[in-house]
């Protein structure tokens, strides 16, 4: 029964793209792969954790898939260290990944000089979305361009009887809000010293405290029904004009599209509140479980190549809502939010990874636990600060 590699380059790919929009995107890659001569065998598993767990267990059970989706984060670092992944150095070299891929992503997929994953896309998590209708109703004329603007806008929305911040009260969504605050209120330097360097001094600094305060302040703009809410239900509030703003990743566009709303007309998107707010990169990638079977290795390499071809990149990301990983794609056919994102990406100094790129899953989780507790309880800022400090200590 075990799917032993056969001479034909049959490639079983585990991924978690299961919703309608994601499926369409996945299908695009599959089609491209097939066109390139591969045989795509689809193993979709809903839920990122779940899908990764399956992949890992299949590797352990000596029945690995040809490729498995991971995030472009430290998630697969352990696998690499255990020698469980094949590298795709050949492809990376021949395709010149070093040149076309953004730095934060390269830092993750390149481990000790070897390339262990092929990135697929860039999601930006900390977009500020707003309902034009709601803004109009609240009398907000212009898109907030500073943090203070934003708070002012939120206050106005509140005054107009509109839910200022459409928020899904789940820990990961709170982390997104936090990252948005850290990036926009704290700025890139603070962001990196806290998240990347885990610098105790920075964490205990007054500036970081301000970030936390701002983060907590956001909570006051949510409605009582927010805890536990799914992000799409929050987006629905935006769509219906019941709420004014949401901080969420670019996948939100799928919901707007489903409700036949158009970017720039019905809703607006703000990537950052300052001209140099970091663009927090997150994305998906495929890793290649270790195998010595040459045809499987070929299949893996083929996938690595296909995924990064510009046309695939463009079409895939259009469907997925993200932006292409390579900077050399013509994005004129994409929506204005994506285009804005691509524009920002051109500025290398604004490319910064999300926390998962820098933190181990474990540290990241601990951070998330503290943030959500802080968000939802009356935890004093100092305590949150202290807890974060100790969670990010080694």
């Amino acid at each position: 029964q075990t799917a032993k590699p056969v001479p034909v380059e049959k490639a079983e790919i585990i991924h978690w793209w299961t919703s309608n929009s994601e499926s369409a995107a996945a299908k695009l890659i599959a089609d491209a792969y097939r066109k390139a001569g591969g045989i795509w065998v689809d193993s979709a598993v809903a839920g990122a954790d779940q899908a990764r767990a399956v992949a890992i267990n299949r590797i352990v059970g000596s029945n690995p898939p040809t490729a498995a989706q991971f995030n472009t984060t430290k998630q697969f670092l352990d696998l690499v260290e255990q020698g469980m992944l094949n590298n795709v150095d050949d492809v990376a070299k021949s395709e010149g990944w070093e040149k076309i891929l953004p730095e934060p992503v390269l830092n993750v997929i390149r481990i000790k000089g070897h390339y262990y994953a092929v990135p697929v896309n860039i999601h930006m998590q900390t977009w500020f979305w707003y309902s034009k209708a709601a803004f109009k109703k609240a009398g907000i004329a212009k898109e907030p361009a500073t943090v203070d603007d934003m708070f002012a806008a939120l206050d106005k929305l509140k005054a107009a009887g509109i839910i200022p911040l459409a928020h899904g009260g789940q820990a990961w969504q709170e982390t997104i809000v936090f990252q948005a605050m850290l990036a926009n209120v704290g700025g890139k330097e603070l962001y990196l010293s806290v998240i990347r360097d885990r610098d105790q001094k920075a964490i205990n600094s007054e500036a970081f405290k301000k970030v936390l305060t701002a983060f907590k302040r956001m909570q006051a703009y949510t409605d009582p029904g927010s805890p536990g809410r799914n992000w799409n239900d929050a987006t629905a509030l935006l769509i219906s004009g019941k709420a004014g703003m949401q901080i969420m990743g670019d996948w939100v566009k799928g919901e707007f599209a489903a409700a036949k709303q158009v970017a720039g007309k019905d809703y607006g998107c703000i990537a950052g509140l300052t001209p140099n707010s970091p663009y927090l990169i997150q994305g998906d990638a495929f890793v290649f479980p270790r195998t010595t079977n040459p045809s499987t290795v070929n299949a893996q390499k083929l996938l690595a190549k296909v995924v990064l071809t510009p046309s695939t990149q463009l079409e895939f990301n259009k469907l997925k809502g993200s932006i292409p990983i390579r900077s050399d794609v013509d994005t004129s056919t994409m929506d204005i939010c994506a285009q804005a994102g691509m524009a920002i990406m051109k500025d290398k100094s604004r490319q910064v990874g999300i926390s998962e790129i820098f933190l181990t899953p474990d540290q990241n989780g601990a951070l998330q636990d503290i943030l959500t507790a802080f968000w939802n309880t009356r935890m004093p800022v100092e305590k949150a600060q202290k807890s974060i400090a100790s969670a990010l200590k080694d």
Partner: protein
Amino acid sequence: MSAILPSANAVPNASQKPQRRVRSKGFSFARLGIYAFLISAAIFFLLPLYIMLTTSVKSMDEIRMGNIFALPQQFSLEAWTIAWSSACTGIDCEGIRGGFMNSVAIAIPSTLIPIFLGALNGYALSFWRPRGANILFGILMVGAFIPLQVMIFPLVRILASIDLYSSLPGIVLVHTVFSMPVMTLLFRNYYSTIPHELFQAARIDGGGFIRIFVQLVLPMSTPIIVVAVIMQLTGVWNDYILGLVFAGREHLPMTVQLNNVINTTTGTRMYNVNMAATILTSLVPLTLYFVSGRWFVRGIAAGAVKG
């Protein structure tokens, strides 16, 4: 013969006299109370189903805007057809029907074998009481408290080492392992209420271990077997994680597809399709529940002993 079946025993009694029984007023009040309780409980139980059903026939727009209790404004079965035959679960958009036969193939052996083993264990434990078996049982009971996910990793390794990983026998074996504590407990405790003398009589009659089990004990187990089937079939049918990890690509159960339809982190969500898919998936256990009634027989050991 038929006296054992409730349909022949209890029901005629009940149906013969209601018109007379009404005369006693204490009786009807009690009845009233019973029905009041049952009906209010039923309403409580049915409320979520109502929401699921109405949601499944609403359009996404209506769900997004409307009240969850509201009746659908435009009734549409589209979600059901999508759920059944065209929802995407990855690049394949064939709905949840694809895994149906897999689920059946997994569920049948994974229901029968664990129940058989559970009954066998219970029987051996409560009638034969072999030395040391109770210690074993104790360990098993403690083991029932381990979250099964913790055991996945070692089990994957074990199964891989005996070449059963990612196969139908493998997933059946895994279900057998995980259901063993509860199934054993279920039968062991049930058998402890059967008069021991019956077992003794069968031993005098020369019955061996297997004979007594098959011919005497199993026929007396119908009510508990029904409960066991309800539990085990539901458990296996609704299992997701084990099927996902152990069954292998070719045998993925329906629930994997169901989860793929329902569960998404960053994709769009189709609540109406989710609800339809959930209800569709649960139809098999639901049918079982409905038809199981006739095996909930009364007084299966009646007339066996006096005392």
